[in-house]
């Protein structure tokens, strides 16, 4: 690499870094002036909230709050569903959606989503190329289900309820963040489960 091209690459990279972050500096002069003039103390409630919600420090706290609240909802939901869900691949589910019998080596995986009043519920995931597979609610009690044959592996998915994504399935093994939202994760083919 030539000396002058390295110099230029360095200049460009450092400048690009700053220009990409220009939004951080928007209104900085006003904030400094306001602080110096003592009009709004820096430790005010607004500032505290802003700092709590700031990306590097607050996001984790806000996330924890969301996860905590969601967990509470799931506890209630789980207690409700516990009565209704048959184990995957075993027993006769009360709410089943007819699907083709699972091919050899695949498990028929039950997806279940309580959505009373919903017009449509589907599941999207890396097992169907994120194209909706519909859930059904034949008896109209608000519990939507689908059984999908899947081979052993790890699957990420979310429910889509009337067009809104819901990525926190109480039956999931795990949750991950994706595009700023949650996806549920299920492992299919655990020994002692399924087909």
């Amino acid at each position: 690499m030539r000396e002058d091209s390295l110099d230029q690459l360095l200049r460009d990279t450092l400048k690009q870094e700053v220009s990409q972050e220009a939004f951080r500096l928007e209104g900085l002069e006003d904030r400094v002036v306001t602080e110096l003039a003592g009009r709004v103390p820096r430790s005010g409630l607004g500032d505290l909230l802003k700092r709590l919600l700031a990306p590097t420090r607050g996001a984790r706290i806000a996330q924890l709050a969301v996860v905590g609240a969601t967990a509470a909802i799931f506890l209630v939901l789980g207690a409700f569903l516990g009565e209704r869900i048959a184990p995957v691949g075993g027993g006769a589910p009360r709410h089943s959606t007819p699907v083709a019998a699972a091919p050899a080596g695949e498990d028929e995986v039950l997806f279940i989503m309580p959505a009373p009043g919903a017009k449509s519920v589907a599941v999207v995931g890396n097992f169907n190329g994120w194209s909706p597979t519909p859930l059904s609610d034949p008896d109209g009690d608000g519990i939507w289900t689908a059984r999908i044959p899947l081979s052993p592996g790890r699957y990420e998915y979310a429910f889509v309820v009337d067009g809104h994504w819901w990525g926190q399935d109480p039956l999931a093994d795990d949750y991950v963040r994706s595009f700023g939202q949650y996806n549920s994760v299920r492992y299919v083919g655990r020994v002692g489960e399924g087909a």
Partner: protein
Amino acid sequence: MYIRSKEEKDGVYHNLNEVDLLRASLAGDTEAWGEIVLRYKDAVFGLCLGFLRNRADAEDLTHDTFIRAYENLRRYRLDKKFSTWLFTIASNLSRNRLRHRRYHPVVSPPEQMTGGIDPAAVVAREARHARVKAALDELPHGYRAPLVLRYYNELSYKEIAEVLSLPEGTVKTRIHRAKVMLKERMERNGVMEYERG
């Protein structure tokens, strides 16, 4: 009493030269100091980012630099170059933060990469910049700081020596060595390969 609008005030300050702004600031005019912040915020942020390699920290320290500088403005001698004095404050704050960070490591989020006209150029350019940044990250701080002051803040060797409290000869040697290290790292990481097409 006639109260000037914000636009009018901004217009007034915008046309003042640096010395007048500093004089007004020293007299307690915080709006004049706001104009100084406006003029130097990019340079200070770039310096802090270069030192710290973390955007949120750099943002915090840019703010702190202007507060600290205002509080210490009486110590600034108007016959000296203001930017050098300001960069010295930013550099000291950054070094303190680096010392603190040894025990409290943090990481910055990935950069936002914006789209461009030619998708190949976008992909290649972003990958190349990412590799330069990775190579910069690997440089010891003592070598990275002079490099940033030279290539981002466009300071002379003498000014860099002043900001970092180092002999001028040491600054020259470090910049030379830093570039050699950077070149090796980038070649090892394959920057040149990405310059195809």
